[in-house]
């Protein structure tokens, strides 16, 4: 279980989070929505201890993350996969080595045959060809980097997964593959996940519940139906803006189709 209890965070005078609370049950997938710059990535980084809250507590797997000693935190992190918004691939290592570093169990990490097998499997799961394994991150497209980042995060078979915009920058087909992967990990392996997203539709598909982060607070939490039916002005504003965006995109697609 992941629990954020009344956390606050500011950078100098910029108050990013102000009393945010959120609980994610075991086996549940929660989508965290919100406009750009609202603090979604910051929230996600609190969960695996990359950032510390100024006040409040973060509890993951029964452990108080901000108070953990370094080796305890490292141990906890090996059970949490983190997909970075911009991939954050190790650019002096090949794709295969990147994914292999994601295998967090030390015995498995040293087992060359197991690693080769696991790398291949993870590449397949994110819909990448096996020959990508020998390339360097600089040789990949943005969408491919993103998917390698996801492959690296799932390589260690984590119990928790934190996705920072896993489908942004992907074409619809691959966005679909990734959404399918998130669903499958939840259904088959009971992974507990938080999916940060801009994309309302995609997150409604993968998430059991959706939370809207708005002006430093969680404005609304609920199932897709509850969110859609909400009369809260911020929620409606956010949904409307998203609807407009997807209409514009649909028009663009049609134009391209017609041409």
């Amino acid at each position, binding site marked *: 279980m992941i629990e954020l209890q009344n956390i606050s965070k500011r950078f100098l005078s910029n108050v990013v989070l102000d009393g945010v609370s959120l609980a994610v049950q075991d086996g549940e997938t929660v989508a965290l929505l919100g406009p750009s710059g609202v603090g979604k990535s910051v929230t996600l980084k609190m969960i695996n201890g990359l950032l510390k809250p100024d006040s409040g507590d973060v509890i993951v797997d029964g452990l108080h993350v901000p108070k953990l000693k370094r080796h305890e935190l490292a141990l906890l992190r090996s059970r949490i996969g983190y997909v970075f918004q911009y991939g954050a691939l190790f*650019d002096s290592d090949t794709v295969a080595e990147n994914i292999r570093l994601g295998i967090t169990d030390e015995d498995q990490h040293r087992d060359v045959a197991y690693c080769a097998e696991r790398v291949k499997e993870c590449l397949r799961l994110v819909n990448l060809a096996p020959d990508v394994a020998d390339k360097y991150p600089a040789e990949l497209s943005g969408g491919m980097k993103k998917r390698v980042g996801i492959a690296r995060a799932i390589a260690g078979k984590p119990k928790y997964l934190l996705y920072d915009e896993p489908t942004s920058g992907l074409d619809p087909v691959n966005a679909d593959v990734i959404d399918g992967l998130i669903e499958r990990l939840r259904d088959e392996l009971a992974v507990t996940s938080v999916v940060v997203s801009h994309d309302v539709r995609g997150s409604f598909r993968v998430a059991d519940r959706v939370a809207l982060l708005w002006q430093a607070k969680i404005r609304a939490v609920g199932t897709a139906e509850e969110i859609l039916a909400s009369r809260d002005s911020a929620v409606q504003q956010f949904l409307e803006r998203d609807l407009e965006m997807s209409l514009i995109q649909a028009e663009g697609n049609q134009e391209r189709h017609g041409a």
Partner: protein
Amino acid sequence: MAAVTGALDLVRYFGRWGRRPAQHVLGNAGRFTYLLIDLARGLTEWRVYLPRMFTQATHIGYGSLFIVLLVAGFAGAVTSLQTGYQFTGALPLYYAGAVISESMILELGPVLTALILAGRIGARYAAELGTMRVTEQIDALESLGRSPITHLLLPRIIAGILVIPALTMFANATGILVGYLTAKGSLGLTYADFEYGARYFFRPLDLWYSLIKSYCFAGAVTLIPCYIGYNTQQGAEGVGRATTTAVVSASVTILLLDALTTKLLLGVK
């Protein structure tokens, strides 16, 4: 009124410059000490850093060899020419052998090599680690439960501490050789004279001294850029700033250490 605001401005001015650098220096000293402790703690995890250390060592070793030897060769040649210019007639020629070999081993070899490598290895370390910091690669490593200390810092630092003294020894040899050849060409110094002079003043301690010096410099060339790169902030501009700061700080530290080791080890009063 104007005087009061003027005084207030002055107070603010000096307050700012008085407190901030002090805090800055203390903060950095504290964090640097913590880093050293972390590095020492990480030493037990040789399984992680040794393989990476060898890769780094070959990279920086081969990559720096040419420029180091080039600079050492020129230093040897110039020392030789200047010795000739200053000595001719006044002192026996074999003195030139002593001057060339001793100034190479005691000062020019270690210091020039270290300064060159501060620009080559130091800048490289700071830029690499800075880029990894701002592109979240260091965060990514930590998010996998892996330690940046053992995966990134120790391999680089140990590689430098192994490679830099070795390069210094090559530099010493090259400098002396080129110095001798130049002296032979310009002063007509024979090999026998050169060897006689070199041996006459040479103490085995001198080579040790050269080696100890280069280990100290290796520490400066690796630790400072790694520390600065690892703590980079604010994007591409931050990486640029970290790189320049790293090279400048490492170079100044080398010069300070040079003075210090000369005083301590040679017992110059």
